Each structure stands twice: as C-alpha cells, then as structure tokens.
C-alpha cells in the first residue's frame, strides 16, 4: 500500500473514562468504549446518538482535550503518543467548531483578532498579509468586513458560528470536527450554516467529522454515519444504507422519533422507545437491550460485536432476522 491510500484519520479502540467521586472511593465511568473508524481525505462522517452516547467525548479525545486510550492515527501518526510540541504542530491541520459559538469565542477579542489568531500562532506573516487573509476568510463564510471590529456579544448566533468556522478554517485544516454546530441556532439560520459547511467542504476539500443528534442535518452533510449508544457503536453505514435500510433497532427508533412536519401524517407509535431502568447491568450483554423491543435472553448474556449485515456494520444479534 502506498502512503496516499492510508486514511487521513484512523481511530482504533478509543476508550474514554471519567472518574466520578463516590462516597468511599472514585468510581470509573466509561463514556466511550472500543470505538474504531476511518475517515479518508475529503470524506465526511456523522456521529449520531442521544446525550450520553459519547459523541462529544470522542471529539474531545481526538483533539486530546481529554485523556483517552487507544490509537488516533492522523496522517499516520498517533496523536495520543505525541509530546506537547508535536501535538501543537499537528493541531494546525485539525480544527474544531463547538456547539455554543458564543462560549467558544473570547469575549475580549474582536472578530479580526479571533479569526487572525491561528495565523499568529502558526503562520507568522506581516500584519497586512494577515489582515488580507482574515478579510478573505470572512468573505468566504459570508460575513462582511463591517464586523471586523465587533466583539462576540455584538454578534447574532448565526454570525458567531460563522466567526467560529472562519477561525477554524483559516489555517486550511485537512480535518474539521464539528460538535453540534447548528443545534443552538434558529431554524432559518440552521440551514444557512449547514449549506455553508457543505460549500466549505467542497471548496477546501475538507474531511468532516460531524457530531449531531439531528438526523436530517447529518443526512444532508455526511457520506457515512455512525450511530452510538452509551459509548458504543451500534451501527455504521453509508448514508444511503442507514437511512434507506436501517439495521439496528436503535437506529430505527431514532429515525422513527424524528418528527414529521405534516399534520396529516400521524406520528409513529413510540412503543419502541423504552427507558433505561436504574440499576441496569451494563457489564455484559447488549447495552441497548433494556430499551430494545427485540431483546431476547441472548442479548443479556452475550455482547454483540459489529458484523456486516446487508450494507451496514451492525452490533445486534437479531439484525438479520
């Protein structure tokens, strides 16, 4: 295999644990367990799941914002093994856009400073060159230069998210991680930002790791989708396969729960969406079994592993029935 064929990002057996304070001792809580995936240059992968599914932990672990174990091979190098200096250098090509755009921007910096800051860190240039690049970047994300002198609190939610995106893209990274970038935006602005992300992906040949709980946006932006539940992968498939022929009962429940914006179509019955009981035993068996309408005895005994079913990779004993 030539080097060019290696994926841009390869994650192997990623595990994230948090320590909770207990009464007598600290207890470990596993947020992400055994997650592996590949992402090629220019590809886009959607991570979906409910809160607590581990999708944000994965994003943070990839950037080493939180400790994790496993391997994160980016351009062939394991990010988890790099020292501080090497890591800093690697982050030049690996950027993130956060959910809450206002919280992610330093309130004391102007738009020009915010968007130009990554250049100061990584690409020293004259002030004039920097200003030109910042202006070009703002234009690319659809902002006028009248915003250059503004502070974050003077921006609307949509504008702030565009600034966040400009700041992430100004170094022309190869991989952009987006953690729920449109979740907190108004309906009319949501579509604008989704369209912008799609344009940026095409124009800058970006690989995109897109984290969302909104299945419609993921369908619009991502070539492949990975469905997570309680830190484990339930199903991975191409967009067509996942939305056309979902295999995992959890994927089906997520799709059925999506509201149909039409008063003439009755909402699907929701018997399938159970609730996790307290004291559930997650140490073995399928983690979804407590909510699963198809669960049988075997699901409590044996943990299902990801296996090919149809066009998908599915972790379910009953996926091919």
């Amino acid at each position, binding site marked *: 295999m030539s080097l060019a064929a290696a994926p841009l990002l390869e994650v192997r057996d990623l595990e994230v644990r948090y320590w909770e304070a207990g009464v007598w001792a600290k207890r470990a809580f596993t947020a992400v367990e055994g997650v592996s995936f590949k992402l090629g240059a220019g590809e886009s992968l959607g991570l979906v799941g409910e809160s607590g599914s581990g999708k944000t932990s994965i994003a943070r672990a990839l950037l080493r914002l939180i400790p994790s174990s496993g391997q994160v091979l980016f351009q062939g190098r394991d990010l988890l093994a790099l020292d501080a200096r090497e890591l800093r250098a690697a982050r030049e090509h690996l950027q993130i856009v956060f959910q809450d755009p206002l919280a992610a921007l330093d309130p004391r910096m102007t738009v020009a400073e915010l968007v130009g800051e990554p250049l100061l860190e990584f690409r020293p240039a004259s002030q004039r060159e920097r200003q030109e690049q910042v202006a070009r970047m703002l234009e690319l994300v659809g902002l006028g230069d009248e915003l250059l002198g503004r502070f974050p609190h003077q921006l609307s939610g949509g504008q702030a998210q565009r600034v966040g995106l400009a700041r992430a893209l100004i170094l022309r990274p190869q991989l952009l991680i987006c953690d729920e970038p449109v979740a907190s935006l108004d309906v009319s602005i949501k579509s604008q930002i989704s369209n912008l992300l799609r344009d940026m992906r095409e124009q800058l040949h970006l690989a995109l790791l897109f984290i969302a709980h909104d299945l419609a946006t993921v369908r619009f932006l991502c070539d492949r989708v990975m469905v997570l539940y309680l830190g484990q992968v339930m199903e991975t498939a191409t967009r067509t396969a996942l939305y056309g022929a979902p295999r995992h009962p959890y994927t089906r429940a997520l799709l059925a729960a999506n*509201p149909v914006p039409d008063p003439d179509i009755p909402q699907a019955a929701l018997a399938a969406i159970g609730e996790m009981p307290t004291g559930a035993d997650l140490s073995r068996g399928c983690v979804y079994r407590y909510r699963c309408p198809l669960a049988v005895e075997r699901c409590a005994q044996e943990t299902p592993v990801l296996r090919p079913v149809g066009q998908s990779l599915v972790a379910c004993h009953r996926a091919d029935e």
Partner: protein
Amino acid sequence: MSASPPMLLQARSLTVGYQSAGRELLALDAVDLDLAEHECLGVVGESGSGKSQLLLALLGLSGGAARIAGSIRYRGEELVGAGTERLAALRGRRIAMVFQHALSALNPHLNLGTQLMEGARYHLHLGRRAARARASELLATVQISDVARRLRQYPHELSGGMRQRVLIAMALMCDPEVLLLDEPTTALDVTVQAQVLQLLRTLRERTGVASIFVTHDLAALAPMADRIAVMYAGRIVEQAPVRDLYAMPGHPYTAGLLRSLPRLDTPIPERLPAIPGQPPDLAALPTGCAFAPRCPLVFEPCAERPALRERGTAHQAACHLDGAAARKIREAWP
C-alpha cells in the same frame, strides 16, 4: 350568539415594552390572541420574536421594568392591572406554566415530593398525605415509575426527559384549565422529545386541559396544535388552523419556515432551503414590514407595515399580498 361564554383566555392589543438605551423596545407589539376551552394553540417564532414574552405577560411575570398595555382576560376577568394576590391565586391554580429549562425551573435544594406538593397545599389546602397521594398519582400519569422513591429524590438525580415530565406533573397538580408550555421539548433528545409530545397529547385527551405551546420547531406542533400563531419581531404575522397553515401559508415567512423544516422523507436536496439574513434586531426595526429585508416577494407596499387581515376561515396574515397570491406565497422559496 351573544350569550356565548367568554373565551377561556383572550388578549387584545397586548403590548410589552422595555427601556433600552433611552428608547422603548416592543417585545410584544399589539398582540391579539384567543384560546378556547380544550384548545391547543401553537406559537412559533425565532429568538426575539416575542413568543416567550407572550407567556410571561399572560402570567403577569414580565417584571417591574416592563411597560404593559392592552388587555388580558381570563374568562372575561381583566388581568392587566390585577392585584398580585389575585394573580398569585390564578398562577399554578388555573393557569400553569411548564418552563423550557427543567433544571433551572426546579429548586435543587428540595426533593421532588416537596416541590410537587407545594402548589396543591397552597392552592387546594390539601394536607400532606392528600398532597402526596396527588403527587404520586400525577407522577404515574406522566409515566414515571418507582414513584415513592422518586418523591424523595432531588432534581439532579433525574435524566433530562424525566425532569421535564416532573415539571409537567407539577403544572397539573391543581388541575389547571390552561397549560402554558415554553419550549417544553427543545432541550431534549429526539427520542425523549417524541415521548414528551406523546405524553402531552394523551394528557390533553384525558383531562381536556387547554394549552399554549410555544416553540421554534414547527414540526413539533404538527401533531399537537389545533391552531398556530406565527410570531415575528413581537407581532403575530399569521394565525390559522394547523392544516390550513401547512397547506396554504398566507405569509412568506411562514412559507419559509415550512420550507426550511428538516425532513427525512424527501430526497436529499442539493442545498437546504434557507431564509437569508437573520431574525431582526428589535432596536433597529424597519418602519414597514419587519420581514421585508428577508422577503423574496418584497414590493413597494411593504414600505408600510401590513395589518393582520382575514385570509379565510379563522385564517389571518399580515402581508400586503392577498389571498389571490396564495400560490405565489407558497412557492416563494426556491
């Protein structure tokens, strides 16, 4: 017809103004609204549209800095200018609110039992035992299991969906006639959101409680509301029965909102339909139609602010384009 009983809840020219930098901003601008018995009225709008301000005003909770004008009548009784005691007697008893952020609406220091029972003890003068029985009954109604243990738990011990259901149970404690729902599903996962919506539908069938359901998500209202009011920049710009609104929007803004709803049942578009620009800044509203700067159908008359006019049965829209342009409006967006 003159003998018909007064509306359950009725607002006329309801206006809420706040002072900002030396001038007055109208968070609500002359809003007229009717709510009949057992009815569910959906209110949609983006941030700054005034939808949450509307609910606060109905409960007399706009705050001391607000200037309130117009009228709010509950079964014919005027509430604007009513004394605090009268309002306190109505709040939670006849008109109850479910807030968006369940975690900040619940007191972290008190267990759920105490919080659930508080309203019933105050309004209905129930004893501890009777109030506890009522609380248990309602927790079961909102499909929370293991009730006895839940009553002793604190808000942080529950999941988000469960907290939201506790808030709904709490609002129902005194068997109110009107539920005011402020984005009750926005902060929830889709699966939990679907459950809460289904619960609200069941409750309505069972108890007949009327509601005003405020949200930015038109999709959530489709299976819930009888009528929908669309708000923009502090005003109602369209109001119609839910089917008419979806089938024949009378305002380009409504048409745009409908177009930009994310759907899974249509082919993947090349681009998502979007409304350009951003929700208006109340401090810098244009003199004419507030939506004109973003409207694809803008023409000369829009320099003047359009009034809310009849479009059909129980259907009104504030747009200079009239009923004859219905098709044009529906197809306004690419």
